[in-house]
């Protein structure tokens, strides 16, 4: 049975000449997991929001959207609320109440369920999602991953037939993201709930989706199984390959054979063609003048336990040092100590005299205090070249909050680079960026490093660190056990490795990213 269908649907935002969605037609069957892909600005969020009447953006729409063969706009409010669920990117912003229990009850209370029925549904839903022990907890005490699971549970308490998720793991760590994906797959497999979702990075979900719909500039350019979509993109839209998972990107290395889609496909492909690939020589970075040296640093917020314990490391000019660690491992605390916002309880952090430090927080929104980007960037007085380099010229008259995640990140970086810092501290800089935006951001950082700056980046984005770090380390148990050059560090990892490493392990050892591979002509 078709659960939802679009028939020549187009959408234009108010005041825009260009249509955001152009004659979209597709249908989704009940029980499918559909992944909607596309680069930033391709229309993914616009499409998903239009499938849920209560959150549909204001604008001019043409064509029809159907839910169970009824026009979506004609659904009753109760049905639209209960049968179609919507989960957005920010785990915190979409929460209404103060406790988990009340958050689960919110939707049921507002759609006229009796208190006894509400309590029963909460009991059932909390058992399924494993939330019984945290029912009375304040939402502010939960991690990002737990918050998002509560959000999905709150939607599921209303027993939807269709759940729409707009980049639900954008702000989550890989572990939390993986847990959320497992839950969604469980909803699909065990309960037959249809799931339509977008993701900015979809390496893991791509191969498990039943269908993939690829949007580009508001149009569907591919619609089918993951393999069909991969083939279509590779053969007809090669510029978009970099946005696809690592196995598919092997195609860009010049092979004209069958396109690998899964990790095991990628391994099979490499095994068959092992003679054609070799490991490229590593470009070793020599660190310049030491800018920061931490010696035996320990720190705690209270006496019950140290966050950082006897930690030592140093960073010099020309280095991009990536520190990986789980949520709560102390990464942000470490950056604040380096920046001088906090003082170590024991140990010392030596900074070069006169060093200029700039800090890019995980959430860059508080950096923007004016109504236009131009005002935030100082009206281009000292940074006109930088604005052009970062591709911000056309965005200057826009409100900063109207920018996409990638644009906001670049704008924030521009604000910091204007002050010519010696050392850049980045806290989860790739959170919310798709692959192309992440690569563009990485290019800016690499240029800064070549210009003699140092960058310390704390992240749980293994792919980003594997691609771009000159040195990497784990923050574990309050200290850095060992750090190493990019290739040596990542090729030694088993569980925290890039998807390329998982493909090449045991076949081409030492390869952690595709650029480590050299391919000879067929």
């Amino acid at each position, binding site marked *: 049975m078709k659960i939802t269908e679009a028939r020549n649907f187009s959408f234009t935002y108010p005041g825009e000449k260009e249509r955001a969605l152009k004659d979209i037609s597709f249908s989704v069957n009940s029980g499918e997991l559909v992944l909607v892909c596309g680069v930033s600005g391709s229309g993914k969020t616009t499409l998903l929001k239009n499938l*849920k009447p209560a959150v549909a953006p204001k604008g001019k729409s043409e064509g029809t959207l159907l839910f169970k063969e009824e026009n979506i706009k004609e659904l009753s409010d109760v049905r639209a*609320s209960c049968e179609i669920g919507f989960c957005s990117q920010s785990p915190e912003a979409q*929460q*209404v109440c*103060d406790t988990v229990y009340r958050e689960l009850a919110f939707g049921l209370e*507002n759609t006229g369920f009796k208190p006894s029925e509400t309590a029963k549904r909460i009991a059932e839903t909390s058992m399924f999602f494993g939330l019984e022990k945290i029912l009375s907890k304040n939402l502010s005490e939960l991690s990002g991953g737990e918050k998002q699971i509560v959000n999905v549970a709150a939607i599921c308490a*209303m027993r939807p037939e269709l759940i729409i998720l707009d980049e639900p793991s954008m702000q989550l760590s890989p572990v939390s993201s993986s847990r959320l994906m497992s839950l969604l797959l469980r909803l699909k497999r065990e309960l037959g709930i249809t799931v339509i979702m977008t993701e900015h990075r979809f390496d893991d979900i791509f191969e498990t989706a039943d269908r993939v719909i690829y949007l580009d500039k508001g149009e569907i350019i591919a619609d089918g199984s993951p393999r069909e979509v991969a083939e279509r993109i590779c053969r007809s839209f090669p510029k978009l390959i970099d946005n696809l998972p690592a196995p598919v990107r092997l195609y860009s290395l010049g092979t004209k054979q069958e396109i690998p889609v899964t990790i095991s496909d990628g391994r099979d492909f490499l095994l068959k063609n092992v003679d054609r690939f070799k490991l490229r020589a590593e470009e070793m970075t020599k660190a310049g003048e030491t800018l920061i040296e931490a010696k035996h640093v320990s720190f705690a917020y209270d006496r019950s336990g140290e966050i950082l314990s006897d930690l030592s490391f140093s960073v010099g000019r020309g280095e991009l040092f990536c520190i990986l660690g789980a949520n709560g491992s102390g990464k942000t605390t470490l950056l604040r100590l380096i920046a001088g916002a906090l003082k170590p309880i024991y140990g010392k952090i030596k900074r070069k005299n006169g060093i200029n430090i*700039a800090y890019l927080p995980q959430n860059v929104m508080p950096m923007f205090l004016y109504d236009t980007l131009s005002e935030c960037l100082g009206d281009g007085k000292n940074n006109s070249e930088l604005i052009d380099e970062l591709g911000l010229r056309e965005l200057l008259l826009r409100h900063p909050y109207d920018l996409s995640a990638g644009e906001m990140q670049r704008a924030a970086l521009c604000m910091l680079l204007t002050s010519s810092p010696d050392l850049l501290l980045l806290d989860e800089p790739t959170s919310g960026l798709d692959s192309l935006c992440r690569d563009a951001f990485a290019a800016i950082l690499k240029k800064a490093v070549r210009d003699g700056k140092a960058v310390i980046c704390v992240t749980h984005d293994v792919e980003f660190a594997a691609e771009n770090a000159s040195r990497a380390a784990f923050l574990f148990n309050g200290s850095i056990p060992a750090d190493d050059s990019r290739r040596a560090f990542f090729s030694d990892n088993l569980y925290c490795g890039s998807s390329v490493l998982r493909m090449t392990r045991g076949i081409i050892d030492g390869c952690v990213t595709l650029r480590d591979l050299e391919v000879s002509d067929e």
Partner: protein
Amino acid sequence: MKYRVGKLHPLVLFAALLTAVALASSEINPVLSPASLVFALLAAAEFGFLKKSLMLFKVTLPFFIPLIVLNALFSGNGVTVLFNFFDHSVTLEAVMYGAFSIISLTAAMIWAGCLGEMIGPDETVFLFGRISPYLALIISMIIGLIPKMLDRMEEVRILRKINGNDKEKHAVLKDITAVVFQSLEMSLETASSMRARGYGVCRPKRLAPYKMRSYDCIALSVYAVCIALLIVSKASGYYYNVYPILSAPEMTWQTWMFYFAFAGIMLLPTVNETAQKIIWNKRKPV
């Protein structure tokens, strides 16, 4: 949702504690003011609020002498003249009224503290949900928003400190602006989420997670009887005040009835807590 064993239903607790606050503030005389304070301290000790209550004395004690002096100087009531200050007679009654006012105020503050300690956010939302489900939602959202705003303020402050804008003009105002802008932006998504989950579709039926138990019914009955006795004694002429003359109370049946009802209301929460502790000690699993 876990609820402490033997705790009174929020409605009963709220009514009893609020009445105690009202009685403590209104009955200012040599008998009931000290009695209110003693009952309040007993309740605070039972509810684990004693340490904070004793801190309240630090707030009220500095006003003890000033209030006595002010009342003596400005109140012309009372018949027992102690001395004359210029053209004004300073009476014993005015001095004592000032003293008992502070005692009653302290007692009322301790009762209010007990109210705050025993009625948490969940109970508050439940109570206001009885009046208006929308009001309950607003309270719940405010309770949820406060820690978020505090976290955002801290993040913004650290950001400003690190990026060298610490000494910027109007720095605190800019911090508040940043937090408010961000919160407003995020509130759009919160509003979307509310609409997506049916807010405004129909009048909400808030959950009632608290049930009336046998001890709630007993407490409610005792409370109702005490209120009735208070009303009857007042209606049939009970009156005792410092003014016009400081003297011992006339022990009529109305006075006994009022004191009995007063003690009943003031002791109700404490006696329930003590009784529940005894019951727990007897019945708890070995």
